[in-house]
């Protein structure tokens, strides 16, 4: 047992050593906000930080970096899980549906609409006039709900009236990410799946990119780099050429359970 732990520690030390200790490297940081995955509960739009908890949307004025200021909260519904900002609106995912809030007045988010689905979990991403929502039926979702997991495509050209266009049955979808004509969907045990959005209203399944249990993705649209988190670690892929997406690196996960079980 001790030996195994030592081996793992040595392995990690070697791995860190190989990669160098970059603690004091000068970093080039960007002077704006970053990008989270579709499962995020925190998001920043302009000078505001938006946080969704289980029932509400909370917002903070962060224009004064030294003193972020809690400005208010709005009750939405039970089972709120994710928030995705897109062009002056927040798309909020929850157990009972998707909610759209306009934040053109950041201090006063206004709910424009909600789209209800009865059997779901999980997040939403948006590109142009389309929202992509994954619905996962599972034990932590609505108890005893009937229905199946799916990828729903909504027409949101009228933000006040989202309209379901297609529903694509899936087995176990988690997070997702959209980048122009590509849609990446994490499918739990079925890994990361690639869909083509040549017709944005009708995603077409192309293939599996990674087979490890995948949970969420961030597509960095400018660099065409995909960051994937899953049970095997944090993997990064180059997707400049959708026909040959390849892995750049993997930061491994050392499972505590594995250590204990051996």
């Amino acid at each position, binding site marked *: 047992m001790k030996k195994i732990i030592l081996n793992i520690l040595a392995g*990690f030390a070697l791995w860190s050593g190989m990669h160098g200790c970059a603690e004091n*490297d000068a970093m*080039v940081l960007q002077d704006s*906000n970053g990008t989270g995955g579709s499962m995020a509960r925190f998001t*920043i739009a302009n000078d505001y930080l938006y946080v969704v908890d*289980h029932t509400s949307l909370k917002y903070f004025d962060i224009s004064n970096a030294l003193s*972020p200021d809690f400005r208010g909260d709005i009750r939405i519904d039970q089972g709120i899980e994710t928030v995705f900002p897109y062009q002056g609106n927040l798309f909020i995912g929850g157990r009972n549906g998707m909610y759209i809030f306009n934040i053109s007045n950041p201090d006063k988010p206004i709910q424009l609409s909600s789209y209800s689905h009865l059997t779901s979990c999980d997040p939403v991403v948006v590109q142009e006039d389309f929202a992509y929502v994954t619905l996962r039926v599972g034990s932590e979702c609505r108890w005893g709900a009937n229905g199946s997991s799916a990828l729903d495509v909504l027409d949101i050209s009228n933000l006040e009236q989202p309209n379901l266009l297609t529903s694509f049955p899936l087995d176990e979808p988690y997070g997702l990410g959209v980048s122009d004509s590509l849609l990446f969907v994490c499918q739990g045990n079925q890994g990361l799946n690639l869909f083509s959005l040549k017709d944005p209203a009708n995603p077409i399944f192309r293939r599996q990119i990674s087979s490890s249990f995948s949970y969420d993705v961030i597509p960095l649209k400018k660099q065409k780099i995909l*960051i994937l*988190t899953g049970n095997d670690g944090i993997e990064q892929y180059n997707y400049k050429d959708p026909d040959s997406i390849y892995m750049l690196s993997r930061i491994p996960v050392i499972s505590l359970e594995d250590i204990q079980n051996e």
Partner: protein
Amino acid sequence: MSRILPAVLFLMLLILTGCPVDPAPEFVEGEVEGYKPIYATDTNFEIEFEPARELNNPGKIYSYGQLLLINEKFEGVHIFNNANPERPLPMGFIKIKGNADMAIKNEILYVDHLQDLVAIDISNPSKLKILKRIENILPQNNQFPDQTNVYFECVDPAKGTVIGWEQTIIVDPKCYR
């Protein structure tokens, strides 16, 4: 007494949550999918910069310029220099008990720290500066899991502070929400 206790606990939970919950299915005996509390292993809840460590239970991810941040569920945030995505370099770990979420703007990292929202200056990650802490603004997650309509292992305060919940197989659950 032992028969009444679960019912009383459930009733208390109903009152505590204050919202309608689907009626609990019968409490099953044996193994069932549910949630169990994760107790803090130490009592130091300070936010601290620590040397890089391996990923054990990664959660959410966040990309900011050349930085890649990876949440270690309920423990804190790994920081990587991701200037070259072929070779992300570990820079260190920010210990934040109970943490699950993060966002960054202008080199300020915003995180959940148990019930608090905290703003941290990470312009020099190894010399963190806590800029502001807004206390008790985030919901308590130390009495029951976020999810509803689930079984969970009842919290035992004697075991310490609950910093998170783990989905797993539990045995003879006595709590449900």
